[in-house]
């Protein structure tokens, strides 16, 4: 490659390291050291005030026996499953509807509209959604009242609160999967559909037999990204419910936050954080294994 000659004539490795210094030093200090720090801290008891004390696996066993921690993992996994299925399903349906047969100006309009929530802050969205779902004066219950449905206690019952958290999360995030699917659909050559319709495939069958296999690489990437991001859910439950009622909407990241910064159990918080990181890595690994069997690469 000709790029080599550039460096051969002039640049020693030193110059390259200078270019890399800000990024590598930054990643080293603020990502790599913290990862190692987490690993070490997870085996210590430390409240910042007194000296750290080595406790072996006690933080992990304590976390595993703590009902709040267990509930938070259960909640998070439930939220992730429902939110990701909703998010991907809605995104794919809308992408197909927007991509096919729509006049261009409508396509641009809907693409902007569905993408719009992505640019807002999750905290702000949760603030106004909290008002919309308020039991007495919320607009949602007002609309439900119009069709004769009595006021739903959205944020004060476990099921209601979980539903709102998931809906608000999906409302804000489905646009991302939508964009990915839209890109994938635009990449399918027209001839493929023409060939399919010559073979007699129409409507739903066309999508099942042509679209879904052809966009499967995107589906995989979209689901990995959606799962990883939903596993870190924090802003919505923090602003909408503070994890309540009871522990009904407490997520893993909320428990990490409370364990570390409310109860000053930094070791235990690190241990929970490590478990979450392992979960994220396991999900990614599993999905890529599955992809070898089910994803169709053109």
């Amino acid at each position, binding site marked *: 490659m000709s*790029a080599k000659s550039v460096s051969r004539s002039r640049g020693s490795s030193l110059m390259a390291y200078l270019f890399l210094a800000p990024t590598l030093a930054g990643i080293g200090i603020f990502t790599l050291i913290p990862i190692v720090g987490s690993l070490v801290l997870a085996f210590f008891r430390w409240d910042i005030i007194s000296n750290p004390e080595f406790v072996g696996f006690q933080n992990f066993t304590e976390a595993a026996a703590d009902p709040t921690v267990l509930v938070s993992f259960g909640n998070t996994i439930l939220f992730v499953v429902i939110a990701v299925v909703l998010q991907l399903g809605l995104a794919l349906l809308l992408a197909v509807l927007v991509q096919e047969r729509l006049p261009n100006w409508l396509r641009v309009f809907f693409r902007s509209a569905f993408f719009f929530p992505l640019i807002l802050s999750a905290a702000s969205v949760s603030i106004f959604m909290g008002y919309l779902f308020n039991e007495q004066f919320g607009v949602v219950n007002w609309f439900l009242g119009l069709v004769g449905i009595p006021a739903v206690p959205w944020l004060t019952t476990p099921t209601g609160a979980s539903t709102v958290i998931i809906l608000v999360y999906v409302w804000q995030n489905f646009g991302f999967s939508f964009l990915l699917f839209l890109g994938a659909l635009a990449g399918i050559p027209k001839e493929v559909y023409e060939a399919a319709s010559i073979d007699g495939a129409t409507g739903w069958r066309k999508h099942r037999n042509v679209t879904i296999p052809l966009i499967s690489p995107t589906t995989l990437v979209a689901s990995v990204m959606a799962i990883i991001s939903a596993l870190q859910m924090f802003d919505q439950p923090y602003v909408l419910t503070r994890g309540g009622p009871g522990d009904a909407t407490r997520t893993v990241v909320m428990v990490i936050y409370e364990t570390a910064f409310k109860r000053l159990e930094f070791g235990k918080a690190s241990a929970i954080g490590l478990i979450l990181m392992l979960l994220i890595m396991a999900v990614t690994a599993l999905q890529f294994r599955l992809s070898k069997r089910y994803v169709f690469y053109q």
Partner: protein
Amino acid sequence: MTTQTITATAKRRRPFDWGMALRILVLVLVGALILGPVLWTFSTSLRPPAEGLTLPPSFIPLNPDFGSYAEVFRQLNMGLLVLNSALVTGLIAVGQMLSAALAGYAFAFLKFKGKSALFSLVLATMMIPVQVTIVPVFMLIRGMGLSDTLLALILPAIPTAFGTFLMRQYFLGLPTELAEAATVDGASPLRIFWSIYAPLAMPGLAIVGILAFNFHWNEFFRPLILTISEQNFTLPLGLVTLQGNMGTGSISVVLAGVVLSMIPALVVFLFGQRTLREGLTAGAGK
């Protein structure tokens, strides 16, 4: 028989497209569910503070009242919150653009030992969420004596694995001949980078900058943990505090704050939507 033929031709000429109607109905319905809450937020912020809760809800501000906007400035130090958010977001964006351009350029064009290993390392850190490392980051910040400062928010956010990856891709798409010619003329690598390639890479840099701006302007988790005193709060943190203090008080005042906080994001959306879309989906690239 004649009538039959007529209706048949009429039908053939203008068949009502049920599929299309259903398609548009679904899209309009979802569109309304997406834009409705935002419209309601805007419209309610234009109600007088005392009427925020009044039903029926308002979606179109017929008698705009700016009392809630005046009130949110009285209840929150909006000027300082905006200044903090702008400082934090702006410095992170500029810092990310600079550091990612330099590192991306090195990974694309320069030759050095350990290149592929270092690049893999950078890519590997892209997967690690800040939520997982926040406890050690907090301690690090404390150890550096940066607790409860804006620098605590800025410094850790500058190194960007994603931006480095993006800029490397961008530089790889640029011709190498320019560098060769400049090298023959005796230009140093830094000079070649700064006067030839950095200007050419502006569109890529814009993606890094806009993504950083949008993400950190909206960020809530890190400011919640890394700042303590109100003078260091960013806008989202200030708004959540206001909402918490007021409980179910005057919602139009809180919503006025929410609307104000959306303005920069809205500007980016209006003028940089394409760049933003490209950037967001770049990470999932093929």
